[in-house]
């Protein structure tokens, strides 16, 4: 009996030790904190991006020999779940990659530290693009700065420049031209389609970007707090997109997400694919000079309305090494690092000093996107990512509903009204709780 008790006690002690070991994401060395480990979670890890971070981390560690950065790669499809689990278990990293789409959830859970004061005192102050900072603040419900922007990730339509040239076509300037070119380039017998629709995961956000770019509506909610998603001009674009399904797009599009769309594009099956600057490296690596991009065309009234999704970094409140973690974030957003990163991923730098760099001037679509973003006539429409129900409305509810639209089982107007009603209700709920 006593030996059983001893064994049980030893097992419990071992369990306690394991628990203690796993309760922190950072550690100091045995020398009493001389060397600090900062844990960084990359929110969009992959073979194209991870080596870039590893290079930046090497540079940072050389410049800061007392800080070690532990890199943890998480794929974009899993990152929200990983953060939620980490918050629930108190095991968040020190620094994490955070998109504007993730901000509302993280700030609602009070997981991130406010960065306003740190940024105000930082040498970066005044060097980061003002509209990126404004988007970051708006995405967290205007409660302050919880994400330090690193890149703008504008929507782009990639197209097969070689096929367009062979058909005597130029990049379309309007939506009607786009649809006409898609029809012209479609050859179903050869399994070739002019366009591809995102019907699967991520369809909601992409469709709303297209609808607002076309409609020229620049506010997600009108003065009374009603969502503008069901504005007739937005509905008109949704109808036009749905009409493309199986006419100029593959049948599989109804459930395709980005990886399948990209695979079709790379395999010569589709001639145009709507994604964002974040896929620059993927498409360039796969297709080289055969691919080019254009920004979402303006609608009939010529107004350019863009969503402004921003990638960046968050400092987690639970971090025991806030100073070192902030130092790492500052390093990542410094001119040299931010320029290196964005040059390689093809996104718009948040650090405005990079706009004077040679690569940026020659970057083509990236600079075009940056210029349009900062053009005086451009209007920015901020998707209501500050709403806690945004993910539920645009993913869980809207994605299967949009698939019904594509399959002809629901009208575009009913779909838009359903999304609009849900957003209106969520906004009213948010206002009543947050003023």
């Amino acid at each position, binding site marked *: 009996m006593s030996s059983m008790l001893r064994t049980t006690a030893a097992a419990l002690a071992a369990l306690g030790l394991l628990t203690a070991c796993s309760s922190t994401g950072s550690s100091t060395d045995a020398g009493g904190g001389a060397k600090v480990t900062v844990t960084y979670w990359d929110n969009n890890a992959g073979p194209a991006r991870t080596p870039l971070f590893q290079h930046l981390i090497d540079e940072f560690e050389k410049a800061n020999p007392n800080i070690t950065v532990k890199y943890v790669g998480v794929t974009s499809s899993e990152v929200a779940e990983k953060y939620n689990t980490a918050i629930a278990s108190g095991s968040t990293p020190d620094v994490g990659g955070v998109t504007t789409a993730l901000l509302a959830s993280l700030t609602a859970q009070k997981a991130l530290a406010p960065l306003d004061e740190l940024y105000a005192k930082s040498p970066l102050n005044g060097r980061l693009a003002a509209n990126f900072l404004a988007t970051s603040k708006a995405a967290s419900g205007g409660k302050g700065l919880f994400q330090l922007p690193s890149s703008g990730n504008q929507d782009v339509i990639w197209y097969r420049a070689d096929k367009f040239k062979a058909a005597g076509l130029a990049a379309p300037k309007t939506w009607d031209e786009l649809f006409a070119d898609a029809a012209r380039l479609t050859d179903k017998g050869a399994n070739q389609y002019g366009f591809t629709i995102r*019907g*699967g995961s991520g369809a909601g956000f992409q469709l709303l970007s297209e609808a607002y770019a076309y409609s020229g509506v620049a506010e997600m909610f009108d003065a009374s707090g009603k969502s503008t998603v069901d504005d007739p001009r937005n509905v008109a674009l949704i109808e036009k997109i749905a009409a493309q399904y199986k006419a100029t797009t593959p049948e599989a*599009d*109804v459930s395709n997400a980005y990886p399948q769309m990209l695979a079709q594009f790379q395999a010569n099956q589709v001639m145009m694919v709507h994604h964002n600057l974040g896929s620059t490296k993927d498409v360039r690596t796969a297709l080289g000079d055969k691919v080019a991009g254009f920004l979402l065309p303006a609608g009939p009234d010529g107004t350019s309305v863009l969503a402004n999704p921003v990638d960046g970094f968050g400092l987690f409140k639970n971090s025991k090494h806030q100073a070192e973690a902030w130092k790492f974030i500052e390093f990542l957003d410094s001119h040299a690092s931010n320029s290196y990163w964005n040059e390689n991923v093809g996104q718009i730098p948040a650090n405005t000093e990079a706009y004077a760099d040679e690569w940026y001037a020659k970057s083509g679509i990236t600079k075009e996107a940056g210029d349009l973003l900062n053009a005086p006539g451009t209007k920015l429409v901020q998707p209501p990512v500050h709403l*806690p129900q945004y993910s*539920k409305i645009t993913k869980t509810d809207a994605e299967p509903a949009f698939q*019904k639209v594509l399959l002809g089982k629901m009208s575009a107007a009913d779909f838009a009204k359903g999304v609009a009603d849900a957003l209106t209700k969520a906004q009213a709920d948010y206002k009543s709780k947050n003023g």
Partner: protein
Amino acid sequence: MALADRTTVRPPAAGPPPTGRRGPRLRRALAPYALISPTVLLLAVFLVVPVGSVVHYALQHHVVNEPYDDAFVGLGNFRAMLGDQRFWDSLAFSAKWVVAEVLLQLLLGLALALIVNETFVGRAMARALVFSPWAVSGVLTTSIWMLLYNPATGVFHYLSEIGVGNAGTSVLGNPDTVFGAAVVAELWRGVPFFAILILADLQSVPKELYEAASIDGAGRVRSFLHVTLPHLRDAIVLATLLRSVWEFNNVDLLYTLTNGGPAGATTSLPLYVAQLARKSYDFGYGSALTTAAFVILLFCSVLYLRLSKFGRQR
């Protein structure tokens, strides 16, 4: 010493029970509890706590990114469920999925078991081939079938090249064909389970029964109906029950093959719960759905076991 002396268990010495000291008696009384305590502890940690936690959350409004709204709502989530059309649709799909899968897996598994139970050249290889899909993980199974169904590189692409069907046919993107396509993929993985269990039971059927049936003039069909099937009854009941529960709870294949689409055409109840947890972060309502699914499964299982008179001597 004789062999009998060394191997015979000596009976306990006769005499009055020990009296006096309480220590040894107490230890002896507690020993069984001490011995089962690790099992009880493990069950508590890995079964009671998670199940209790789900029931607890089912009574709460708990959306991860709305922590300020966390509150006890009693049966509110269950009331919401009654008016949730997607709950009823996903439950109906789950029922249809379970019936189709279990029935087809049973029939095909039984047929395969009967075949590989016969003696023929290459039987060992045939058995290995029949059982091999069972060793493949769900996600890998999905990957295999996604490649087969891929409109650009799969079976339908090659069929269209020889003039059968159209180029670009997507069986997973068409609500009329997606159910059949998913059923076939899951059948490939599930049939070996039945084949293994039924084959094991087939090998325990006494040869004398077949000989007696043969003497009574029974052919192969009558022997199968009156000897084989009655012998397999308990194995079939157990296998169909287990498989029904597993198929009802199936998430991996449907999640990765169709993600519940298109337009919710293949959203089972557990997949709906997974979507609520992963995309909506709604753990309160998701837990209520899980609790409802647990109760439905429990009720169906008890009913099935009672109706089938499982384990009762005939």
